[in-house]
């Protein structure tokens, strides 16, 4: 099913979408595509078309730990086998809190509002 995307001719700003035929007003234009834009796509005002949305990159709290001096001092005295054990235990402990948004602090619930 074709979808129509109404945008401003001057700025390229996306205004609206519809699965019905759209008649643009003066100063507007319509971009038609064969299917609805997926969430993985986003409107680009410069090219007046859809481009791939940048993938979201999360930070690993295990990497955050490696930057803390107190953890570094402990890590430095461990052999490879004990490091593996510690890493495995930490992954179990922090569970789904392991990955965080880049804008959030490393401390779990540290930036909660």
């Amino acid at each position, binding site marked *: 099913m074709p979808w129509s995307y109404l945008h401003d001719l001057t700025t390229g*700003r996306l*205004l*609206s*979408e519809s699965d019905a035929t759209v008649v643009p*007003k003066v100063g507007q234009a319509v971009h038609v595509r064969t299917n609805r834009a997926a969430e993985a796509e986003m409107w680009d005002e410069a090219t007046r078309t859809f481009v791939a*949305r*940048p993938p979201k990159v999360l930070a690993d709290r295990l990497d955050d730990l490696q930057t803390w001096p107190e953890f570094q001092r402990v890590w430095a005295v461990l052999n490879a086998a004990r490091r593996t054990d510690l890493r495995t235990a930490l992954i179990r402990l922090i569970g*789904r809190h392991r990955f965080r948004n880049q804008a959030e602090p490393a401390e779990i619930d*540290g930036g909660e509002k």
Partner: protein
Amino acid sequence: MRRLLSPASPRWTVAGMTTVIAGTVLTAGTANVKGSWAQLTSALPFSVDAILVRLGVGTAADRLVDLGVGPVGDEQVVVPDILFTPGTAGATDRHWTYWPIRLPSGSRLAARCQCVTGAATMEITCELRESLLGRHRQSGQQIEAWGAATADSGGTSVDPGATLHTKGAWSQLTASTGFPCRAIQLIPGVGSNRGRVYARWGVDVGIGPSGDEQLLAENVRILCTGSARDEISPFSGLGRLLPVPVPAGVRVAMRAQCSVTNSADRLFDVVGYGIR
């Protein structure tokens, strides 16, 4: 002598609660397929005017939930595709939605769900009320869902765009409403994007053809608290229900502005519901 008459207190009860104060478990079918119906009560004890639905205890995966009435094997959906998207920490018990719908006494009440993850479970309880909350004068007879995406157990994606605190493009929820509605309900969701930052949205609801949307509701506030509890919720549990009438046969759309601009976290999912 003036006689004071006390009206009988409206009745209230909970359906689906177990003896250990847990909800009734719903199990999804295969990925994005509705599972079997689970009974919440074999017979409604009175004529119900409104239901307060609590959803909880589920993994961090998007779900759609149906409420239905009727005998086993002949359940009729009365509230379709309630969007339920727990955040990174899994489900809390804070997903409450209020449905002013009339159900006859003696009806069997059941629920089922689908999930983006096959066979995922969750819990549900329903508070059944013989009266309405707030200023709603009449309970509804029929509910339809707008914008439920059954292919991924989510809703319609709304993108506020890259300009901070500026309304983005209208996203179509439905090309044509099925009947005239006296109220609408909005349920936002995370859209399978977890690990979110704190964000606020102001959401507009409009009707009409693309390019000529007329505002029905403006700046309905929704919020993501970020951190581990990064589900998206409206400002208050009852704030999702908007007493705005919508005619039959019209296109319904939504747009939003957001307090963040990063291309992943500004997005949210939404399902709208028309209540007749």
